[in-house]
């Protein structure tokens, strides 16, 4: 059907312009098809977070707006949209408005290279993983600029904390990814998933045991915990630490500008969960080979795994108390980075032996 659309466009507009128009429109359609479900899942992730944590604490959670509280995120969204956006008198106006936007753009743009199923990816570029690393590292500017432009002590402290924290954990995260790259031999996310479908256990029909999580278990832990620190989620949320610095970089924001920060945070959370699934849990590959599992479409496997990992983010928020700042730095620099460096050497040596399982 897509080919006939292309043929129609080329017939009407000539080969060059017809092809360009077709490419433009199909890319736009794909972007909308990614973004609309993403926005919806961000909205309902807030509800799921409140519900799940409520159940863990033997409460009921939101249950008033709509059946079972299902319209709660919609009500929250409408409320935030109609609130006034207050510009503090001594704030730097241009940067104050720019900061939440600078936070949201990389969070959205990173989704361009995420493969949702075999061949189902917007931009299948070779350096996909590097692209995501570069974009997520850009997200810290939103926080820093917001903290500086607000002209408030609390906001500035939050910005300083976040700059130090995100730069520190990016290192551990990058090293954990280096190990994944070594065993899969590619920076392309689709190839990384495909590489996990091969191996002795996969040949026996037990695909789940040949995914990266088992041989790279320490890296999975480092990556997941660093991901929590990168997204400033509890127990690493000293950046907003409401008991000490009110809400950190967000303290002066209101209405939709405030909502953009939340949107970016939850989008980054889903992104980290998706990357964890793609890099360590075999992406869209089924748990084990069977007729029933093969009948489930690959994208459903991916979404189900993402849901489980995202729920683990919420679970850890409900379980752990907030880290003290020096303890966060100690964990990043003195525990995770040495651990990843040693594991790079171990895997490198392993790959040179006859027992290399990643040929």
């Amino acid at each position, binding site marked *: 059907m897509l080919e006939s659309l292309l043929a129609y466009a080329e017939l009407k507009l000539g080969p060059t312009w017809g092809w360009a128009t077709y490419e433009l429109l199909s890319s736009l359609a794909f972007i909308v098809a990614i973004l609309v479900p993403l926005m919806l899942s961000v909205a309902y992730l807030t509800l799921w977070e409140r519900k799940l944590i409520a159940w863990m604490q033997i409460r009921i959670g939101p249950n008033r707006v709509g059946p079972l509280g299902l319209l709660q995120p919609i009500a929250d969204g409408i409320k935030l949209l109609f609130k006034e956006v207050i510009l503090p008198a001594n704030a730097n106006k241009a940067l104050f408005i720019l900061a939440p936007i600078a936070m949201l753009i990389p969070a959205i743009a990173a989704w361009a290279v995420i493969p949702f199923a075999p061949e189902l990816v917007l931009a299948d570029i070779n350096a996909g993983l590097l692209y995501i690393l570069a*974009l997520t590292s850009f997200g810290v*500017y939103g926080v*820093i600029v917001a903290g500086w432009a607000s002209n408030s002590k609390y906001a500035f402290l939050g910005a300083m904390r976040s700059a130090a924290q995100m730069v520190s954990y*990016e290192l551990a995260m990058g090293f954990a990814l280096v190990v994944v790259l070594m065993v899969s031999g590619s920076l392309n996310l689709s190839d990384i998933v495909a590489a996990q479908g091969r191996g002795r256990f996969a040949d026996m029909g037990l695909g789940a045991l040949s995914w990266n999580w088992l041989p790279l278990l320490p890296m999975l832990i480092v990556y997941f915990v660093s991901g929590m620190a990168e997204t400033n989620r509890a127990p690493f949320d000293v950046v907003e630490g409401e008991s000490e610095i009110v809400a950190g970089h967000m303290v002066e924001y209101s209405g939709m500008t405030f909502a953009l920060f939340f949107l970016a945070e939850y989008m980054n959370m889903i992104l980290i969960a998706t990357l964890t699934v793609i890099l360590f849990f075999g992406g869209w590959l089924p748990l084990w080979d069977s007729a029933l599992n093969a009948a489930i479409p690959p994208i459903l496997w991916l979404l189900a795994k993402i849901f489980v990992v995202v729920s683990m983010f919420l679970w850890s928020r409900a379980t752990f108390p907030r880290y003290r700042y020096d303890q966060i730095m100690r964990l990043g620099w003195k525990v995770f980075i040495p651990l990843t460096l040693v594991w790079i050497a171990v895997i490198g040596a392993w790959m040179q032996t006859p027992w290399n399982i990643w040929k």
Partner: protein
Amino acid sequence: MFEALLFYVFGFVILASALCVITARNPVYAALYLVLAFFTSSAIWLLLHAEFLAITLVLVYVGAVMVLFLFVVMMLDINLERLREGFWQYLPLGATVGFLMAAEMAAMLYGRWSGLATPPRALPPGYSNTKELGRLLYTDYVYAFELAAVVLLVAIIAAIALTLRRRKDSRSQDPSQQVKARRADRVRLVSMPSENDR
């Protein structure tokens, strides 16, 4: 033609933002303009199919170096008037350095103008810029690469050694000791008979 158009747009943005870096009165603005300049130059590298270098430029300079720059610049309390005092005094030196840089760039560009003007070769299918770069770095240039790595390592250690100092009055905690603490070490339960009401 479309690529040429993109090149000119990016080139204009780079020039404008680079100019703003040195003319902006606010050092935070200057740092942010520099981020924009890095971003745009990485876009130009992408036009040349050098995706690995382009993304690494953003990852290293925008993602790490400039964050630390901003971190420092935001905490500085800069008095602009005092910075401008020595303008005429430093002008001859600055002009010499600027002229030298311009002359070097001109020699570079005009010396190889014919080589740069030839269109790049068509890339074979399955060509990966990252793979080619890695192959070159780890085969032909492996000694230079290792040397650079060692120099960087020495620089890191030197930087740490220069700034590391132990203050006598600083206190720190030993987490392994903290974890090892048991209730019996801290609390002594004493059995006491209850007081009778009088």
